[in-house]
């Protein structure tokens, strides 16, 4: 197979952007690992993402992708290895700490509160206030208009930002979550499978947001099952399998077909293609 030509060690020194070097990485993990009780969900994974760069994380179900980003975003603490944010070693105790550093995460379950209005969800945890002392209050008008404006910038025209976010379609909810991350001056946006439940069109919209965030100079960590979604926007590709890293490739070092083949089951899928035909 093409495996040897894709040796991770070999491809590591490659850069998608030559003027940018690892020390400038916004987020970097070295040999990171995580166990849930007796289950080792992740071990010995290293990766980094810099500004204006898109790191794609690919892997099977249960490969540890969500675990990986939960460590980056402070939702879980890692049990091995080191995590560097802006070159400084960190151990997040609470998602708040990561957020305060500009690490914004769009979770697989979107982290929205279905019964709350769109604008309240948009600003949840980072509400705008006006006034001072006991008169300090939410800047409702400001938040409403900012939400409307930010969503419009993303190409979403909601009639009513007061409707509960639970009434939006999956794609719209996804977009709100991404717009939120971008708006709060995030340095890195982490997205966990934002496209899996989306139609072709909606997935395209989300990909375009990712490209836009990248063009604004944000770092993006993008998790997906779908090589067809990852390849167009990704700069680097981290492949996970059963909790360990299979490789970390620059875009120039791998083609979409090689990537598909390398993902666990790629080989089986080819074999399968015959079987799917009518006997």
């Amino acid at each position, binding site marked *: 197979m093409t495996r040897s030509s894709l040796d991770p060690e070999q491809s590591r020194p490659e850069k998608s952007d030559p003027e940018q070097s690892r020390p400038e990485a916004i987020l970097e993990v070295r040999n990171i690992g995580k166990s849930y009780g007796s289950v080792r969900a992740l071990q010995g994974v290293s990766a980094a993402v810099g500004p204006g760069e898109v790191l794609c994380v690919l892997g099977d179900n249960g490969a540890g992708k969500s675990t990986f980003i939960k460590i980056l*975003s402070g*939702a879980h603490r890692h049990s091995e290895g080191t995590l560097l944010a802006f070159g400084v070693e960190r151990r997040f105790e*609470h*998602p*708040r700490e990561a*957020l305060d550093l500009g690490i914004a*995460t769009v*979770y697989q*379950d*979107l*982290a*929205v*509160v*279905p*019964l*709350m209005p769109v604008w*309240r969800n948009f*600003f*949840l*945890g*980072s*509400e705008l*206030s006006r006034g001072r002392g006991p008169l*300090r*209050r*939410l800047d*409702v008008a400001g938040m409403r208009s900012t939400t409307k404006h930010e*969503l419009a910038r993303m*190409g*979403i*025209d*909601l*009639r*009513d930002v*007061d409707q509960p976010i639970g009434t939006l*379609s999956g*794609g*719209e909810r996804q*977009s709100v979550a991404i717009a939120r991350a971008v708006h709060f001056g995030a340095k890195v946006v982490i997205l966990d499978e934002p496209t899996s439940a989306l139609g072709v*069109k*909606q997935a*395209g*919209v989300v990909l*375009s947001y990712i490209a836009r965030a990248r063009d604004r100079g944000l770092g993006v960590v993008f998790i997906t099952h779908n090589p067809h979604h990852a390849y167009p926007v990704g700069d680097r590709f981290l492949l996970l399998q059963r909790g360990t890293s299979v490789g970390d490739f620059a875009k120039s070092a791998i083609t979409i077909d090689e990537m598909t083949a390398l993902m666990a089951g790629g080989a089986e899928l080819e074999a399968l293609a015959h079987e799917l035909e009518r006997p």
Partner: protein
Amino acid sequence: MTVAVGAEIDERPTRAHPLLTVLRRPEVGALVAAVAIFLFFSLSTQAFLTPAGISTWLYSASLFGIMAVAVALLMIGGEFDLSAGAMTGTTGLIVGVVTTQWGLNIWLALVLALVVALSIGAGNAWVVMKTGLPSFIVTLATFFILQGCNLALTKLITGSVAIQGMGSVPGFDQVKVFFGSSFPFLGMDVKISIVWWIALTALATWVLLRTRPGNWIFAVGGQVTSSRQVGVPVLKVKLGLFMTTAGAGWLVGMLQLFDVSTVQATTGVGQEFIYIICAVVGGCLLTGGYGSAIGAALGALIYGMTLQGIVFAQWDNNWLKAFLGGMLLLAVLVNLLVRRQSGVRA
């Protein structure tokens, strides 16, 4: 490039009448029910609409209402507090015992009772958050423990099951100004607790709708993991809510103590459900994340009006509970109907 994701949804028929926005508020159902009950008793009894009558049912509603508003906040935040009723007894008994038996300064006694109440509230929150046990069970245990301690300790210290001679404690009349007084207003003799009730309802509404903690209360009740993920301090919010409920228990305890100037070991037992009923009638979901303080206040108003209205109507008192049950069912059904009409899923 603008991919108009929103545009395609616009095509589907929807109504967005401004009236609908109002009708979608959680408290609308309770408002409709409250007006209906008000009209019913106003028309069918003589005394209900007299100034003296109004002040009576308002007072009744205010004592339930203060707790109902606090309990509603807690329910919106996704938790229950079944120890809320017994807490009104505990705080009253503490003040009673330390002033009448040990001669402590009455102001100090107030502060002491408040500190104890808040600690119990914090304890509830701590156990709930640390063990992950449902607050229904944890606070049921607290309720039993408070009930037992109220009785046994009072008996142990005072030798009887009620506080006597509270009225002759030095400084009683000063404190009574804040908790047990009344003033004339539009021909009514308005109890100070009504002022507390209205003030707290307004404050709670303000907090819920116009402050960050309010936003967080909805969030932790609606989806606790999501809230944690976006950085909401879940533990602090729940701690604050349990302490608010305990604090409201203290306030109601004081209002009762300084009104009737005596308190018994059984005070407050069985009241916890009335608070929950008021909150639910006022539109709070039992599952959390939805509701309003004004709704809970309206729920208490409905309860107070019904309770006293039945007396004004001179109906056979033995049926009281049956009436209350019917009223509860009716109120939640009206609530449901109003919300269904306005297209909100309950």
